[in-house]
């Protein structure tokens, strides 16, 4: 009995080794296939975009049609402005929603509705959001503006920030909140100063990642911020942005503009990439620092 059992184990061991190896190879192929598109896009953008970069790109304004040269300086500044406005709108709003869902609303009907709406907002095509802001802001103002564009991007941020906040706050164990209450602190102080403060790091990461996402949104800006060949003259004026500018140049018939579009694409990809990497590095460093001390 024992003899054949050991035999069986040994034989099945060899079979298991073979299956292991086959699976490993299949998985490696799958991983490679997944990375290939990412790498090829990056690669292509780098190859096309890097040669097109020059100082003028970062400092000059777009030249009129037909002229060679110029740059996307205003688009770069424009993207930053729009992201800033979007953050002012989206971050507090998103955190507030996330806070409500995690701290106050737990089981009520209202919180289910709110959560549903946030999820819907996340799934709506961004161009629809742009149209919504067009109807709400651009038409009454009778002009395109940076404010409208920032608002559209901000609305897009809300679901992500809210979801991140809610999830992170839920990870704070309940007895931490109870300890705060037990000190004789009102609930709002416990939430703001203890619960929220304790999740500062991860929430910031979540915010940075959603910024990286909206920085590259093009569709909603088409009817809200529109575009501007010149420097921005006021927040209530149309504003240039990197994605829109790339789009404009890319669909044009001019080679020089195509070249610049690639350069813009490269800078945009680099920007998003950098935000991601730096945020994650800083977060990992803070975690490590906390563990060491």
């Amino acid at each position: 009995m024992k003899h054949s059992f050991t035999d069986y184990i040994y034989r099945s061991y060899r079979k298991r080794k073979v299956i292991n190896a086959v699976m490993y190879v299949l998985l490696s192929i799958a991983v490679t296939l997944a990375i290939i598109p990412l790498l090829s896009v990056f690669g292509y953008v780098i190859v096309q975009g890097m040669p097109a970069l020059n100082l003028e790109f970062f400092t000059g304004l777009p030249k009129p049609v037909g002229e060679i040269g110029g740059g996307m300086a205003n688009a770069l500044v424009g993207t930053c402005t729009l992201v800033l406005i979007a953050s002012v709108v989206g971050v507090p709003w998103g955190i507030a929603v996330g806070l409500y869902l995690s701290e106050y609303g737990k089981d009520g009907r209202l919180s289910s509705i709110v959560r549903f709406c946030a999820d819907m907002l996340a799934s709506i095509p961004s161009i629809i959001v742009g149209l919504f802001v067009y109807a709400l802001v651009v038409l009454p103002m009778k002009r395109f503006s940076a404010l409208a564009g920032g608002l559209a991007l901000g609305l897009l941020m809300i679901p992500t920030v809210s979801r991140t906040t809610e999830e992170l706050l839920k990870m704070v164990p309940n007895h931490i909140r109870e300890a705060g209450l037990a000190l004789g602190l009102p609930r709002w102080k416990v939430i703001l100063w203890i619960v929220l403060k304790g999740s500062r790091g991860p929430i910031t990461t979540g915010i940075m990642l959603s910024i990286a996402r909206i920085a590259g949104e093009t569709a909603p800006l088409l009817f809200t911020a529109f575009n501007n060949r010149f420097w921005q003259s006021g927040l209530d004026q149309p504003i240039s942005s990197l994605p829109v500018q790339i789009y404009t140049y890319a669909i044009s018939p001019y080679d020089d503009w195509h070249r610049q579009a690639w350069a813009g694409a490269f800078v945009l990809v680099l920007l998003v990439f950098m935000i991601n990497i730096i945020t994650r590095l800083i977060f990992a460093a803070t975690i490590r620092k906390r563990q060491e001390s």
Partner: protein
Amino acid sequence: MSSVLVVRKLNAWFGHTQALKEISMEFEQNSVTAIIGPSGCGKSTFIRCMNRLHEEVPEARASGEVFLEGKNIYLPEVDPVAIRRKIGMVFQKPNPFPSLSVFDNVAVGLKLAGVKRSAVLKEAVERSLILAALWDEVKDGLHSPGTSLSGGQQQRLCIARALAVEPSVLLMDEPTSALDPISTAKIEELMTELKKAVTIVIVTHNMQQAARISDKTGFFLLGELIECGDTSQIFTAPKDKHTERYITGRFG
């Protein structure tokens, strides 16, 4: 010796389930009272009714009277938040606030209540840490994170944090059950000094601990207070049969 805390006919419910039935008890000033009983007997619910933390749970409610220094804290006009400054609590799992230093952890109750002068805060932090028998171990590292301490130190930090707002009563919900024997012994040791400053009510499922540290003991079973008396009497000659069976380990 007067009673700093008097409970009269306290009832508590979770939804439709009654967790406490007509509990009446008195707690003498500067004493340590142990609350013992099998799981689910209502002892945690009981102390959470003392600082009105029970009602923070959805669908939970309580009725009856609890007199803190003569005033009924269950009157409708009483603010639960104010009560909790006078009746502090330490929980089973040590829970220093994340991303706050040792100093900030102890000071947070005072700071968020509006105390700003750093001299006052420093004095309060030192006093609380000394009472919690932690000062010597942390005085050179007051600004390291609260979570960098060992489990036993973290629990003493939580005790200091609760003491900083100068409560009259300190409620402790199985404070050493998550700790190793040496940390447990340190915390038990500090109780003899601590009770000179506050009145202590401690829930414990460790009979020997209740016997070691408390002056009076109350035995709870299925939401009722079965017997309450001097600890030495309860553990040598309990009057009630159920108390006897629980203490000698024959059930629960």
